[in-house]
Every structure is written in C-alpha cells, then in structure tokens.
C-alpha cells in the first residue's frame, strides 16, 4: 500500500533506530556466545550506551543471558549524532576480556560453569585464558583473547551486517 511521502523522514528515522537496536542485540548475543560464562554474571552485563556513559551492572547472577530489544530501549536511540558503544559493566570485565592479568576472585560462586570448561595451568602474570597443558587446577570457559578475535577477527562485522539486515527487513512503509 502506498504511503504518503510526508512520512518519509519519520519512517526513515524509525527504521534506522530499529536497525541500530536490532544490531546491538545481535552483537550482544554474539559477545555472550564468544565470551566466557562461569556464573553467567559477565554475560548479563553488556550495555549499549552513548560513548562515555557508564553501563549498569550485571542483570542476573546465574545462567547465560539472552538479549532482546527490551535491553536496548528505543528511548535511548532518539538523539541523533551520538556515538554508541557496547560495553560490559561487570566488575571483573577487564579480566574476563583478557585485558589484564587474571586475578583470583574470592567471591566467585562455586558450582558448575554455565559453559564448557577447559582445564590447565595458569602461570602467574597470565591472563584468564592463558592455560598451558591439559591438566591443572585452573579452568577457562572461553578461548584466550576471545574479545579481540570477536571484535576485529570478522565476527563483529558479520553480526553487525546480520543485525542491520534484520532490522531494516522489518521496516514498514517501504514496500
């Protein structure tokens, strides 16, 4: 059905916002899939925020988190000309992303990890994912350097493209 041209700007803005939100959801779920999952707390702490803004904390403490559009409210995307970043607000995010050496967390919950674990020996000074050998007291639930591998190794751009295709594909008023 034909749509009056006067709605064009509004329709374009609506579909662009929806595509941006869908892309954020796709990327955040991609990060959950690529990243570590012991308790699940880290997986629930991804936020899309204007650059420089602080993210919130973990949304839940157990199980892998599944993101949907409710995690990326449309109201947050109303302002034009803003850069958005996807950041993790978990207190141990730097360690989980292998950005700083591993530090033992005494508050880490006991129990079975929500993702399959590999075991090995983590030397002093090593990051979370740097396990050597196959037998040892230490565990890891994501490959070493999973974050740069996701962000610049191609998976991010693939999720970005998929998110935009999905978001624009649901556009109304353009048929």
């Amino acid at each position, binding site marked *: 059905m034909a749509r009056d041209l006067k709605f064009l700007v509004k329709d374009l803005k609506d579909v662009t916002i929806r595509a941006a939100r869908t892309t954020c959801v796709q990327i955040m779920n991609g990060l959950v899939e690529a990243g570590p999952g012991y308790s699940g707390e880290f997986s629930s702490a991804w936020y899309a925020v204007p650059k420089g803004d602080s993210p919130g904390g973990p949304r839940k403490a157990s199980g892998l988190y599944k993101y949907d559009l409710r995690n990326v409210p449309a109201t947050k995307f109303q302002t034009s000309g803003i850069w958005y970043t996807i950041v993790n607000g978990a207190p141990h995010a730097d360690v989980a992303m292998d950005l700083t050496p591993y530090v033992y967390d005494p508050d880490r919950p006991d129990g079975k990890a929500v993702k399959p674990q590999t075991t090995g020996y983590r030397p*002093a*000074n090593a990051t979370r994912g740097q396990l050597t050998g196959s037998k040892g007291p230490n565990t890891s639930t994501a490959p070493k*350097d999973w974050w740069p*591998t996701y962000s610049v*190794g191609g998976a991010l751009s693939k999720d970005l493209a998929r998110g935009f295709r999905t978001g624009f594909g649901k556009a109304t008023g353009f048929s």
Partner: protein
Amino acid sequence: MNYQSIRAAYEVPIATACAALSPAVPVFFDNLAASTLTSTSEYVMVNITFGLTTEVALKADFDYVRGAIICRVHTPKGKGSARNQTIIAAITGAFQTLNATPRAAGAGVYARVNQIDGPTFDAPADLPHYIGRFSCGFIASVYT
C-alpha cells in the same frame, strides 16, 4: 588453508623488530613455555588468533583470512614506561612497514594489519612487570 604461513607473515617482522632493539627483547609466540611467564626481565608475548577463515572469495586461487594479533610487552615494574613504549613502537613500526610492502608476484601470503587498538598500560599489584598491551585485526590473502 595454510595457517602456519600466515602466522609466519606476522611473526617474522615482530621477531626481527624486537631482535634489532638494543638490548634485544625475547619474543614468545603462541604455545610458549610456561616458565617464561615467571621471568622478571623484559619480554614480549604475541598471540595470533584466527577469526573468519572461510570467507567466500570471488576467485578460487586464494584464501582470505581474518584474525587478531595481541601483543603484551612486559618490562620491569618501577622503571618508567619509556622502554615499554620503545618496544611497542618497534613492533608497530614493523606493522607499518608490512602494510607498505607491495604484494609479491605469484604464490604467497599477502599480509596486512588494520588499525591498532591501544596501547594500554597496566602495573598489576602482585606482579613484577609493567605491561603494555595492544591489539589489531589482520587480513591475509593466501595465493596459491
């Protein structure tokens, strides 16, 4: 797919750049011996990871591979940041040279790096090192 030749395309320039420093800096690539991590002297750790390695190309005579290079430069703590940054500059300089090198004719790896993220610096409380970290994506085309 020849992963080893792709690794070599990036590891050789890094190793050469670090060897040319005075004094030369030991570089440890993936699957290194655990004992090196307990050292208190300076060293560089380089991890190369592969991301998308099966991208469809228009031609059949080459593979197109993407991944990430992560460098961690360890220098003694409490002695300033100059040496750490000198080592980082040597490695990033090697990347710039790599990017400026034209593709050789015939078979081989045509290696490029993308923008460099970092460096960031960290001096963990319980560890003997000051650590500079940077990473970048890479794109390698393997011509057969």
